[in-house]
């Protein structure tokens, strides 16, 4: 098995307070970060001449107008809209003036095209569905909201899901179906679908974590869901029936809360690879696991056989002595081994996972 190392590509300073989250634009070379300083920073990247390495330059800073921490950022699949989730209870939708016409990093100002109000307390996460037609948000008010993205950046609330008994920390959409996952301070994960003749509803509750579930991330093929928790573990849940998911694997190694995970396709030579799963923790470590198809994946794709797993890379003190709050793989083709992290040291760092 190839061993990999996590090598630093860039260290992006500029936030004045804790950096909470990052999001890679799926269509353009742009990385967004958000912070307790209430701003969003956008970075452009390209290849320096005569160098294989990526070069990051600060593109713009959006003074969001949010009155409290910007906790999370998410791009629409088209890369034209950016959503912000703030402790001020609102979700902001940001678009660049002339952004759908022109290329170039300085096409226009980023402006708030919609402000989604409805949550009663801190909004903690926001996510676009794979088609870009739905948006989900969640809050300490225990609710998950599903919004329909209508033409002309109009948003209509399709449902308010009140399943969790506590603070909801994270929402994530399935990579190609309209299935929504939410993770909570109540230690559970809930899965939701739309009933075409009725409302959105919760069809599964995943129990197993022993404390707050901080983050959920789907496998690129959509057959697995990963979750990370204050119990220091990462769990892998497998689809065993159309609407049934089972815990099949527990990944250990972190020594404090695992705040964030990201499951990317990775850059593996193994045909059985299910991709690379990165995790970030309050212990300062970033870990990367490779997950592989179980031996019965062709004959019994929905068996409860766990996927194979191995740690392929591990980085201590990714942000010095500080907590690592978020980790995200670049989703763009050719950049499958590029990773960004956000830390309590106010910095955003970019890494590449390369053979040792």
């Amino acid at each position, binding site marked *: 098995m190839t061993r990999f190392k996590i090598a630093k590509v860039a260290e992006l300073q500029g936030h004045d307070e804790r950096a909470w989250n990052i999001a890679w634009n799926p269509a353009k070379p742009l990385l967004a970060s958000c912070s307790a300083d209430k701003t969003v920073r956008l970075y452009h990247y390209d290849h320096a001449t005569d160098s294989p390495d990526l070069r990051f330059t600060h593109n713009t800073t959006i003074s969001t107008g949010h009155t409290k921490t910007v906790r999370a950022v998410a791009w629409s699949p088209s890369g034209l809209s950016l959503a912000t989730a703030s402790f001020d209870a609102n979700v902001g939708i940001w678009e660049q003036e002339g952004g759908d016409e022109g290329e170039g990093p300085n096409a226009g100002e980023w402006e708030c095209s919609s402000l989604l109000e409805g949550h009663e307390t801190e909004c903690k996460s926001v996510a676009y569905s794979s088609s870009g037609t739905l948006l989900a948000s969640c809050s300490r008010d225990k609710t998950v909201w599903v919004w329909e993205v209508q033409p002309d950046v109009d948003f209509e609330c399709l449902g308010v899901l009140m399943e969790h008994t506590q603070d909801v920390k994270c929402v994530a959409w399935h990579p190609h179906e309209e299935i929504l996952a939410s993770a909570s301070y109540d230690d559970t994960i809930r899965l939701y679908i739309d009933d075409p003749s009725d409302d959105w509803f919760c069809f599964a509750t995943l129990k197993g974590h022993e404390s707050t579930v901080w983050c959920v991330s789907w496998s690129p093929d959509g057959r697995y869901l990963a979750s990370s928790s204050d119990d220091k573990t990462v769990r892998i849940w497998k689809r065993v029936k159309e609407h049934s998911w089972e815990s099949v694997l527990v990944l250990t190694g972190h020594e404090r809360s695992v705040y964030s995970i990201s499951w990317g396709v990775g850059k593996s030579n193994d045909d059985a690879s299910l991709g690379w799963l990165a995790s970030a923790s309050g212990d300062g470590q970033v870990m990367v696991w490779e997950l592989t198809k179980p031996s019965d994946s062709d004959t019994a794709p929905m068996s409860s056989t766990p996927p194979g797993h191995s740690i392929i890379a591990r980085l201590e003190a990714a942000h010095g*002595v500080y907590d690592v709050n978020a980790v995200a793989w670049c989703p763009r083709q050719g950049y499958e081994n590029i990773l960004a992290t956000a830390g309590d040291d106010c910095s955003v760092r970019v890494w590449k996972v390369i053979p040792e």
Partner: protein
Amino acid sequence: AKATGRRSKPSKPESFWDDEEADVEVDENTVEPIDQDEIFDLIRHISDPEHPNSLEELRVVSAPQISVSENRVIVEFTPTVPHCGMSTLIGLSIRVRLMQSLPPRFKVDIFVKPGSHQSEHAVNKQLNDKERVAAALENPALVDTVEKCLEKAESWGA
């Protein structure tokens, strides 16, 4: 534990939060030993939100309830009564005090003494959820209350 080189004044633990000592946190790689008495000195004078007394006088905190390893501080405190509604506020005050005073390499965990509070699990969980703590510290009314609790601790010995 005596301070080494980087601190110019005689090493009183209080110097951790003197303004002129703000550079104490700059070098995050130098490991400076800190013991439970120094941690105790930082929190003993915090006031109870409902009493004029300090947490030490009310026996809410004590040195033996603090443990320190290289990069981790665990503070246990004892609410005055098992249904004390102020417990999360007391815990938050302790957390803010340590956040402002200790070098950033320390991970701080705060718990109520086992069996001392009827909502022990809920209080512990809230105090150790960094996101809940961060949001609480953006609430001006709460910050105001915490600052009042910390006033004496911050002025003591200055």
